[in-house]
């Protein structure tokens, strides 16, 4: 079962890595648009 689960994730990533990279890049760029003080404010 353990093998099957890791295989599920490996297969998934292998098939979609290009699209995932595009999503990740777009989100990180958008997230970082805000000034660092705004991103870190409100923390406990």
């Amino acid at each position: 079962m353990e093998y099957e689960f890791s295989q599920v994730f490996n297969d998934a990533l292998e098939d979609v890595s290009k699209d995932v990279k595009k999503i990740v890049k777009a989100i990180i760029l958008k997230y970082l648009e805000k000034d660092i003080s705004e991103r870190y404010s409100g923390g406990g």
Partner: protein
Amino acid sequence: MQSILRKSAIQKILNNLYRGVISAEDIVSESIRKAESIGRELNYFLLINHDLTYSHIDKLNKHICEGVFKPLMCIPVAVKDNIDHKPFTTRAGTPYLNINPKLNAKIISVLEDMGVVFIGRTNMHELAMGATNVNPHFGPSRNPLDPSRITGGSSGGSAGSVATGITPIALGTDTGGSVRIPAAFCGIVGFKPTINRIPVAGVLPISNTLDHVGILARNTEDIIVTLNTLISGFTESVYNKLEDIRNRGIRLAVIRDFVDASMNSVKESFSKALDRVRELDWKIDEISFPDFNIVSKVRAPIMLGEAAANLFDIYVRYRDRMGSDVRYLFKIGLSIPASVYVMACKIRERWISYFKALFDRYDVIATPTIPIEPPKISEVENITTRALLIKNTELFNVIGTPTITLPAPMMDIGLPGYIQLTASWGNDELLLATSLMYEEI
């Protein structure tokens, strides 16, 4: 209430029932007959509910004889296949799921108490993870206005049931536009309330933070009548708001990015709809949403990450039997880093703040519901077309505002256009009052 409900198909049925012009059996038989004929032909139903329906009629006749009238007595309703309704199995448009619900979804229990008759379970996009309603296992549901085109989805069978008059209302779910898209393509009204205003318990979950239960009908009045059974005093609140906006007018903002990105025929229809509301002296401004082009990328980790977690065991067990589009979406969901999911959620918080500020200045925001015409069934393999279907609707799942689609003037291809209106969180009554006013034009 009868005097103010002028267009309501539900009210017409109830008036005829109470006056003895038609019987419970007439209403249900007619609905079942249509479901078996045009409903089968256009592929709207996965199950037609004969047994329950006729046993139900006996019970309803008994109530009528005893003088007990319920608010939705004998009203035929179609239910999307991902909503729990005992004793049926919840299959969510798949041949491999076979979930026996222990409880009814909240909306099913309420509507059942109000006397509705559930006619059947409707065809949908597999697992509600897509907007075409081209189901690889049960076939596509076909657009009632042009059967070579899609209904849109994922509540496509529910939209078809209403558009062809099989049922006056139908239940759907909406995670990225799945009520509004098929309603728009089929020329009817589709409403998703503020997130969680209709409980989603008892719906096969995709996304904890994007799923909504919605209602499809031929006019806004029928949506209001239905919601009134769930939310005490709802109809009265809507009509109070209507009086208010008739006196003071509406402040409407059009997001031009959505309009600019639409096909010409969609744009023209939308523009004609705006010309009509100008006659009502609504104050219309154009605004911009600078993040318009990144919405689908921000929604992807939220929706697909949550879906991959919620339905993980279903994916592991049945991935080889899933349609290739749905399998692909699961793979993206499984591959998104948790850190990116959190960043997407934080971007969502910024958007909520942005729209909160907008709603200080405007009552309602308008966009075309979908940027393209209903595609031909043969065209939806194209991934760009599929992405365009949800481009204008998904933002309002991400931020969770109440949103409705209404028919707009005809497009060049002879099909109705569509306008989408959204209001601030909790202002469902204001939104529906605005829709009533729009329909009066």
